[in-house]
């Protein structure tokens, strides 16, 4: 049993035309037992920025609180929002600080930068990050998610098309994974705001 699959998770983020979307499952389990079906793994840190945290649930919550602390301190001192790339670098540094006793989380950063261009990145549990301009995935069924995204993704999707691509990719991926699923949520971020939709999927 791997510590990264103790609680179970599945997160996908995709870029569209002047928009980004992030989708996550809702399951919180303790190994094979499902404990909650409304566990939040995606967090809106700023009006146009989401962070998705996949992995051990306690570290998901702790890292979220830590990130909240660091980002609010940044905002107070520098009197501006943190650009997505800077969030990515901060997360990377936070994770590497615990190089020999890491947080068991593999985060995803998804947002719009100051010019409202999409930004996507994901990293491993010790902070090695990689940027993408199409999609990023994280969780217990990354193999499934990579396959679905590769099949359904097209560049320059508008928000509604992006929602469809994200929702279908996520639902099909988690259906073949015992540790993730039990519902889903999708957030689409555009320069005008965030659209959030709950997904109705197989509750098993």
């Amino acid at each position: 049993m791997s510590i990264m699959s103790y609680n179970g998770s599945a997160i996908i983020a995709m870029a569209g035309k002047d928009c980004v979307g992030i989708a996550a499952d809702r399951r919180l389990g303790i190994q094979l037992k499902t404990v909650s079906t409304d566990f939040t793994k995606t967090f809106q840190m700023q009006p146009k920025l989401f962070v998705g945290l996949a992995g051990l649930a306690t570290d998901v919550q702790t890292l979220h609180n830590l990130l909240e602390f660091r980002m609010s301190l940044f905002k107070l001192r520098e009197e501006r929002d943190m650009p997505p790339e800077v969030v990515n670098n901060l997360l990377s540094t936070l994770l590497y600080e615990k190089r020999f006793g890491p947080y068991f989380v593999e985060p995803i950063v998804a947002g719009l930068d100051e010019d409202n261009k999409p930004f996507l990145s994901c990293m491993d549990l010790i902070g090695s990050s990689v940027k993408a301009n199409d999609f990023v995935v994280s969780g217990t069924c990354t193999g499934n998610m990579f396959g679905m995204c590769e099949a359904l993704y097209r560049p320059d999707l508008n928000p509604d098309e992006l929602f469809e691509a994200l929702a279908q990719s996520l639902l099909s991926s988690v259906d073949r994974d015992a540790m993730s699923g039990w519902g889903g949520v999708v957030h689409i971020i555009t320069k005008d705001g965030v659209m959030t939709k709950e997904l109705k999927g197989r509750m098993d």
Partner: protein
Amino acid sequence: MYIANYFIAQTSTVRSVRLRFDLLASVRIDNDPIGRCFLPLIRHIDVSFDPSMARRYDASTTTFSPEGRLHQVEYAIEAINNAGTCVGILAKDGIVMASERRITSGLLAPAKTSEKTYFLAKHAACNVAGLTADANILIDQARLRAGRYQYQYQEPIPMEQLVEYVCNYKQYFTQRGGLRPFGVAFLFAGYDEHYGFQLYQSDPSGNYSGWKATVIGANNQAGKTILKSDYQKQPEGEEKMADDDDESGSIPDVQGALRLAVKVLNKTMDGSGTTAAEKMELFTMALDDNGQVVTKILTKTETQAVISAVESESASSGES
């Protein structure tokens, strides 16, 4: 020779200096090669010829004077009385803080955001009077404290906890040796769910107290006089009702408090008129419809509107 805490008093010329070892012995060191060898050992040097008692006990914060005063702390408070004025007023439904922007030179680059108001957390802000450099240290400490509390308890820090922390930090510098006190006074404005809106004032000694309305900085006495009479004014023409024990009825709302704050600043600042809008910074804190704290630093236009309202108010009531 063991040289402990000592003072030297300059004699008529710089040719020789007299050392006093805490009233026990007195040694004269001349300005010759041998005598000058002792000069690097001198640590506390008071080269002014001032016979007053304070002088002997004011060079170190760790020393009480015979009258039981800490002179360094008092001198720090003096430094603030030369700084730009700040007014804070607790309104019925929020808090107002107004401060004087001291523009020392037309060549100074314009401030990007605020010069006098600093945010410590989403629900707390402060105004500064005194040495800005000292204030920056304390503001950062306050921000860290508020952030850590929020991180630990997942709740916003109660206002008094935050103020007390900053003040305890300041107090350290009035008791440990070798360090001077911070030359800053703060007005803290904040909201928590336990006690609602609160206004606190703190000074270099590390003392703080909660206020309904107060002034710090230059001419604060004149400002306080106005507040004493105008803060809980009875509405004109009405008598105090026999059953009117709700004193909040006469406390101004945020808009009224803004006007009162401008009135106070007009009195404490030199000059007024059309340039006054640039020299004032107005800040308000209130709750929105969802019960969330919303803060605002007024724009120049909005500030001018308040100033104009105050001017017409004073003109219509016949005040000079």
